């Protein structure tokens, strides 16, 4: 299993990670080695084996939908890098053109 540089760039884009040229090359090598190692899972015949996503019995966990006090907005906004009028400030997302 060997990843190409464009594949690494595609994964980085999906993960929204800006990587340097050096990082891309290093991850190409390292991820290829790890995936090569992981390929041994394909030795196993798993037809008919259900997947496990949790150790707990499947089922919804519900609670009554009742109003209760929460934390004040200014407390919740305290960690934001940029705040304006009690809201997260971000640059424009849509280009008017």
């Amino acid at each position, binding site marked *: 299993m060997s990843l190409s540089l464009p594949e690494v760039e595609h994964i980085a884009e999906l993960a929204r990670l800006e990587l340097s040229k050096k990082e891309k090359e290093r991850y190409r090598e390292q991820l290829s080695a790890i995936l090569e190692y*992981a390929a041994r899972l394909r030795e196993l015949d798993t037809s008919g084996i259900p*997947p496990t996503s949790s150790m707990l019995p499947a089922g919804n*966990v519900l609670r009554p939908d009742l109003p209760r006090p929460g934390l004040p907005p200014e407390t919740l906004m305290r960690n934001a890098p940029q705040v304006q009028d009690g809201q997260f400030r971000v640059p424009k997302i849509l280009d008017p053109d």
Partner: protein
Amino acid sequence: MTELTELSLDQMMLSLRVGDFSSRELTSAFLARIEQLEPRLHAFITLTPELALEQAQQADQRLACWRSDPGEELPVLLGIPLVVKDVLCVSGIRCTCGSRILENFVPVFNASAVERLLAAGMVVLGKSNTDEFAMGSSTENSAFGATRNPWNLAHVPGGSSGGSAAAVAAGLTPLALGTDTGGSVRQPASFCGVTGIKPSYGRVSRYGLIAYGSSLDSVGVLGRSACEIAKAFSIMAGHDPLDATSINTPLAEINLSLSVEQVLRGLRIGVPEQYFISGIQPEVEKAVRQAICTLENNGAQVSAVSLPYTEYALPVYYLIAPAEASANLARYDGIRYGPRSAAEAMWEIFRKTRGEKFGAEVKRRIMLGTYALSAGYYDAYYGQAQKVRTLIKQDFENAFASVDVIAAPVAPSTAFRLGEHTDDPLAMYLEDVFTLPANLAGVPGIAFPVGFDQQGLPVGMQLMGPHCREELLFQVAQAFQQITDWHLRKPNV
């Protein structure tokens, strides 16, 4: 006053009650020892002396009230110091996860496990060092620098709860919280010669634990002995409506007053051949086999068990955990918390902030997980890993049909040197080979010291039990610690 830090937890609890010394004096003694040793060990990311002394004073008030009117029952750990791994939220105290992306993050609530211990009157000394987002086996992946092993400063303490394990081993705290997603409590406990429990999945609430692998994460505790950590576990464990994966199964009583004979007579211990592979350090195998012999000589019945899918646990884990991590860490985008890298457009902010502030291992796992979940590869990697996870879970179910507990080494070797594996991620991942299966199967495990190698580094053994049978693990480990004194050895820092 440093001698206060040498006392056993029972002695501290008793002395606080009778008033031999105050929680403030006890806390000050630990803070003084931290001040003395922290420059060498770097076990902490953040120290909280003011908070600790304030909490100690409150504990002293409760103790004073109780002494004048002993009618009310006191929480057992009232006034006892605690260290919290820096992935668990303590309200008002910076929580970094060992990452630059949370270097200025101050939580506004307590993790449930922390909340319960604080309500019981414990005193928080500080936040311990961790591999970034708990991803690592050596604490070298912390953005704030590596922690050192108190037994030999050139060696790692293990990870990711390496700061907590080092702090307990060096006598900087009687108890420390850790988290275990693939061995992050048990392996550092083993490397530092202390005792640590990884509870069953769902046993301790994950609310306020900053998520890494949500189907694997568990909150545990480290200390000198099984009977000491059992006291904290009993407070932390139990159902929490704030965590939808918290289980409702009632906690069995942990009976620590049973005799060695009562615990071990007829206890069926399984020894899995798959955990004594070639490549294991001979001194580790020898110490673990000797410990199993000790249990056998005191009444346990030892037999071989087979966990045939053990060798697949590593590739399964390193697909499932990064897949879950890639989703969990998508929230770090420079918008709602953490630093924001300068950029014109929104997407640029995401890419730059994440590219600049995440460390190498975190980026590696995000990439790996993103790949395993991406269109065209999902079935071959993530899907197949989930199916093999079922086989690993069945391995344990089959084994526990014929034995009560499983005994095995915690790691293939004792603590390795700093820098030894940093250039080879796969070699680092192999350190987790014996601890990952319990996380994949959701079963509890306890690690404790059973000897030393020729370099004087501790060797650990783990006992794994059926889901929700922590009480059995505490009792068996405590029986072993009544017969042996490995857990009482202390490093000369």
